[in-house]
């Protein structure tokens, strides 16, 4: 513990700067982030530039990619690129909502269980375990089947509500080890209450960890949402990459040789989630000095 001390640079904010230094040099992180950001950007500004509404029929049905329709058109002559950019939005939205909600619940449960401990921990832990072992897709299937989800937000909400347990578990474990660190006691002796200690002492300490948790939850939400969409339990209005997949599949895109309908949405989901995972490994390497070398 003390040995590192000397080696660590003595300038201000060195930790952060060092992280940044390794971050920009980390191929995994940079590649991952670039892909995700590029797709995010496409989803954000794409719809502004694409004239066609995503579900509008154009004249040319089943057209392969051309200069006019970059990604070709569907059986009904909808512009796939327009669907794609709108779909990206929805997919990111599901990721943010689902991942966000799961992260928030996971954090609250994890922090409280880990910090407060005792009976509260026992109860929360049991709750976590229960939600953890119930297969979430099965729950989502049932709930969605009865509810008939209408919007991306609701879908995200339900995904978030079932996704949190492992995050809670991980955060609880982390909190547990941080709780015994002495600065927590010091904060208590400085008159801070539980909430404040969690928010201002423990959480900042695991910010990188929380961020990585969110990334994983985000990716998971996107995948789950696409599965739900595919089964036909997705949002009934609008477009998402999962719905595009479902439609392409339902209208036998591949069998009819319309690969341009089926491939882009799946590839985009894979790219987003994969890039996030890669970036996550990169982040891990940045934040964890042990993994940096060799």
């Amino acid at each position, binding site marked *: 513990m003390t040995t590192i001390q000397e080696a660590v640079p003595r300038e201000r904010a060195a930790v952060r700067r060092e992280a940044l230094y390794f971050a920009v040099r980390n191929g995994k992180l940079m590649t991952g982030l670039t892909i995700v950001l590029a797709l995010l950007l496409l989803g954000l500004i794409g719809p502004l530039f694409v004239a066609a509404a995503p579900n509008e029929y154009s004249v040319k049905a089943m057209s392969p990619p051309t200069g006019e329709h970059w990604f070709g058109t569907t059986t009904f002559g909808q512009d796939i690129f327009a669907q794609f950019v709108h779909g990206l939005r929805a997919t990111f939205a599901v990721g943010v909502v689902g991942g966000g909600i799961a992260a928030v619940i996971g954090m609250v449960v994890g922090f409280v269980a880990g910090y407060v*401990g*005792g009976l509260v*921990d*026992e109860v929360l832990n*049991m709750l976590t*375990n*229960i939600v*953890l*072992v*119930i*297969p*979430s*897709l*099965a*729950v989502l*299937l*049932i*709930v969605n*089947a*009865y*509810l008939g989800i209408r919007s991306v937000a609701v879908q995200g909400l339900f995904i978030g509500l079932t996704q949190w347990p*492992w995050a809670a578990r991980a955060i609880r474990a982390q909190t547990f080890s941080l709780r015994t660190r002495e600065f927590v006691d010091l904060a208590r002796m400085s008159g801070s209450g539980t909430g404040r200690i969690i928010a201002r002492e423990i959480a900042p300490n695991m910010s990188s960890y929380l961020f990585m948790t969110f990334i994983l939850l985000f*990716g998971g939400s996107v*995948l*789950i949402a*696409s*599965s739900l969409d*595919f*089964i*036909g*339990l997705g949002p009934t209005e609008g477009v998402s990459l*999962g719905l595009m*997949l479902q439609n392409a*599949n339902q209208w036998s895109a*591949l*069998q009819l040789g319309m690969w341009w309908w*089926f491939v882009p949405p*799946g590839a985009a*989901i*894979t*790219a*987003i*989630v*994969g*890039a*996030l*995972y*890669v970036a996550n*490994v990169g982040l*891990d390497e940045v934040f964890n000095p*042990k*993994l940096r070398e*060799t």
Partner: protein
Amino acid sequence: MRRYFGRKLLIYGLTFFVAVTVNWMIPRFMPGDPVASMVARANVTKPEAVEAMRAYYNNLFGLDQPLLTQYANFWGALLRGDFGTSIWLFPTPVSQVIGGAVPYTLALVVPSVLLSWVVGNQFGAYAARRKLLDNTVLPVGYVLTAMPYMWLAVLLAWALGVIAGLFPVAGGYSFSMRPNLSWTFFLDLLHHWTLPFLSLFLVALGGWAIGMRNMIIYELESDYSTYLSALGAPARLIRRYAFRNAVLPQITGLALQLGVLVAGALVTEIVFAYPGLGSLILKAIQNKDFFLLQGAFLFIVLGVLIANFIIDIVYVVVDPRTRAGMAGAQA
């Protein structure tokens, strides 16, 4: 030890209880009337007949009793292994419908889960060994895990099935076959099983490989590895230890992932029209067959719980740390 399992059993018991209760509650507190759709599908015109039918089905499904009684009956029936009657496949009992599908799902899930776990772990351990492998092979792992199950499945079905004609794209065995105990039939089963298995296997494989790689890297950095190499132990031995120790958390990972994998299997089955639970669930949803849906749900929950419990036992058997932890355990 007894305490540990007692505790686990308690959690599983509670989980099951919660699952059953939620399962019971949803159809009763959600909008929509299963009986209405049932009646609507029988081509009955006359209002009296409609009413008669409605009353008949309500009685059949026990929807005409007080809620608490319904709940108690639900449990009673459940314990008798009675999941009710399927609406979509009326009048087949749900347990029978599920029973027909389960072997297929198990045949798909169990090997793909176990094999992907074994192979993925090897693969990850291998990747952690060399920088080159790490940087070239592992991205493949990332891409695989990031793939939506059904996307890969459809691509496989199309490429290897329709285009290349190597594998059938639907069914559990040839439609020209009747089940029998022969090599031909077994090979045929295998032939149909290959593609769905492959798509499940590949996606899961990536996840395990990545997990293992990270675990191994940590293990190789750990004190006992350093100590062993300081004593000049060959890399072979160190890796063997690291692998074993890294595999242990992966066992827990297996338990955690089970739900996800089952979900993947459901989607994959749908793509390949594999006659397992997945196809069943899809149809149950489309036909609003809540009883079937509930039965399938309970079955999956039960399956996952049992699998979890087995994994728990295995884990305790193979990892001495848990045993010590159980004795001394910090809260």
